[in-house]
């Protein structure tokens, strides 16, 4: 394996996740990874392929098919001083561990009066787009972002996939990392000069002046494509990647909206009670008098995500629908 610190190598988002896990396990004897099929099989999305052979069965552990049991074991290990990375194959199955996450991981530091920290990292695949139908296409990160005590990360870029894990492990509180399934095959290069990222701030991925497009995760590249389409029409869109869904970095969003005065929020979650609703309401609270147009949202259609490819595509935010929403604000007539 080449050394990422000296050369700008070409790699996939999946490989960036793997490098991050491998580096963390080698660097700290307290770090280990467990989950369903992460070992011999190499992970449902092949993120951990080859790691068990290299790092051993103590550090890469296959678990029984019981999310409640192995997430609970991860919480216990974290309380006992370990730094577990628990892979919940997809967020669709995280509901089986919801009691562990909400009632234990998020509350134990509080319920124990600060005697216990829970330095647990959960990795979960999220999102639709692979024709996995209604039960395996959820975007539940907005639900988890409702819970105080959790930090919710949504790495969209290869750089964030590579570098968000280390600060997440360093956080004494539980951190959930949502990796969008459509990003694993994305290829790119890492800037060797970047050796770390923060897990506190949103980032402007494309500067612009007419409208702000706020998004995260799997929708980022659709939104950037929409901004490119708009640029061809003479409209300048600023694209913000939230990166951190809880706590929200509203400073970056408000600063941008205070300049552009128009905003579209793009969220693959269902619209009702979504993260996009939270961002919109915060803007109303913090930047009402900066707004020169209604806030618009592009979210998943409120249906179970369909299986047929054309219907699945129609149910999700797409560059065309994002661009149309932005256009309707900047050039209403």
């Amino acid at each position, binding site marked *: 394996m080449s050394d990422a610190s000296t050369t700008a190598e070409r790699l996939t988002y999946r490989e960036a996740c793997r490098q991050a896990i491998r580096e963390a396990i080698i660097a700290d004897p307290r770090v280990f990874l467990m989950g369903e099929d992460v070992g011999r099989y190499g992970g449902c999305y092949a993120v951990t392929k080859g790691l068990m052979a290299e790092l051993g069965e103590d550090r890469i552990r296959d678990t029984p098919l019981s999310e409640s049991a192995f997430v609970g074991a991860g919480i216990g290990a974290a309380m006992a001083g370990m730094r577990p990375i628990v892979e919940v194959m997809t967020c669709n199955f995280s509901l089986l561990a919801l009691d562990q996450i909400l009632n234990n991981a998020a509350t134990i530091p509080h319920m124990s009066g600060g005697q216990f920290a829970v330095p647990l990292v959960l990795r979960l695949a999220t999102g639709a787009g692979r024709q996995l139908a209604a039960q395996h296409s959820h975007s539940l990160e907005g639900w988890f972002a409702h819970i105080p005590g959790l930090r919710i990360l949504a790495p969209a870029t290869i750089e964030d996939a590579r570098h968000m894990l280390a600060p997440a492990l360093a956080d004494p509180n539980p951190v959930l990392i949502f990796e969008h399934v459509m990003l694993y095959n994305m290829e790119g290069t890492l800037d060797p000069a970047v050796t770390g990222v923060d897990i506190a701030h949103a980032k402007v991925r494309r500067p612009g002046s007419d409208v702000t497009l706020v998004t995260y995760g799997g929708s980022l590249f659709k939104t950037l494509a929409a901004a490119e389409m708009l640029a061809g029409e003479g409209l300048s869109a600023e694209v913000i990647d939230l990166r951190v869904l809880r706590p929200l970095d509203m400073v970056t969003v408000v600063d941008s909206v205070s300049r552009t*005065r128009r905003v579209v929020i793009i969220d693959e979650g269902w619209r009702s009670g979504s993260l996009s609703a939270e961002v919109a309401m915060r803007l109303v609270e913090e930047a*009402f*008098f*900066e*707004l*020169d*147009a*209604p806030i618009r949202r592009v979210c998943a259609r409120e249906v179970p995500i369909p299986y047929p490819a054309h219907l699945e595509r129609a149910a999700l935010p797409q560059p065309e629908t994002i661009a149309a929403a932005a256009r*309707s*604000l900047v050039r*209403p*007539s």
Partner: protein
Amino acid sequence: MTVFRMPSLGADMESGTLVEWLVRPGDRVKRGDVVAVVETAKGAIEIEVFQDGVVRALIAEPGAVVPVGAPLAEIAAEGAAAEVAPAPPTPQPAVTPPKAPAGPTAAPPPQAGRVRVTPAARRRAAALGIALERLRGTGVDGAICLADLPSPAPPKRVPAGFDPAAMRAAIAAAMSRSKREIPHYYLSETVDVSAALDRLTRINAERDPPARLLPAAILLRAAALAIAATPEVNGWWEDGRFRAADGVHVGWAVALRGGGLIAPAIRDADRLALDPLMAALRDLVQRARGFALRGSELTSASITITNLGERGAASVLPVIHPPQVAMLGIGRIVVRPWVVDGTVQPRQVVTLTLAGDHRATDGHVGGLLLTRLAALLADAERL
């Protein structure tokens, strides 16, 4: 009937530009009412009328440069109101009209129901004084948006006609005249103000921020009382002799952040207790910064005080503002070793410096003022 003329808003003023009338023919006015806004080197000044009556005619047009003393309007005395031409068919209250012109878009017929306006547009329209009903919206759902409004002229609060260079020139003229004509003498005294500041701390501890007092207020209170007891320094040097003022009208020097200096008057400052004095100070500074002073405040000062405040120098030798005959400088309050009852203690002290016009007074009188001031500050409970 009398003619209302362009007032002199300072010894150095030769003319002013009429910005707008705040009254119209037929309006009843009382002495002290603000009737017009005039642009001078010191910014836009609201000017007041000096008699009761009814506005008979407006002579000067907005935009006109009017020399000091030239007629602005005719005002009929109360009894002569019958001579006034018939009032306009719909009587208008004498409210301030919008300060900015209406928007560029032609007025559409009145719309039924509520006008849609974006939050940002509503805020800008309010800042510009634009009536939204006259605009046509081109935003989402026909809402009036920022694109339908004129851009605000930055910086917002400074009137378009205000010219920092003109103010600089006015200060240069007044200060040159001062140093050319006035033989200054200077007296200094460093005074222990610990007792006064202790009193403020005790008062403020029981008050919410809106009612709190600043050291400036207690210093001004003491100075106003000392000036009242020393009438020889309170007035003007005119036509080769001293004319005493009819009250202690303290000009308070206010630095303007964009550059420049203005010293509007707090009239009868010696008759104001601490709280009203503090309120007057806050009001005056705020309006000076916002260029919303009145003509009488710029012309009536009988003595000026410059208070350098907590970020200023330790002492100042003031330059008298002609035709006044004295100016008091107050340095920054500092902690110094001080001999109290035979022992050295850290005390809060301030250096007071009086500049006197040697034509009007001698150093002995100036020394009396400082002595009185020091005594008042030492007995702070009575201020």
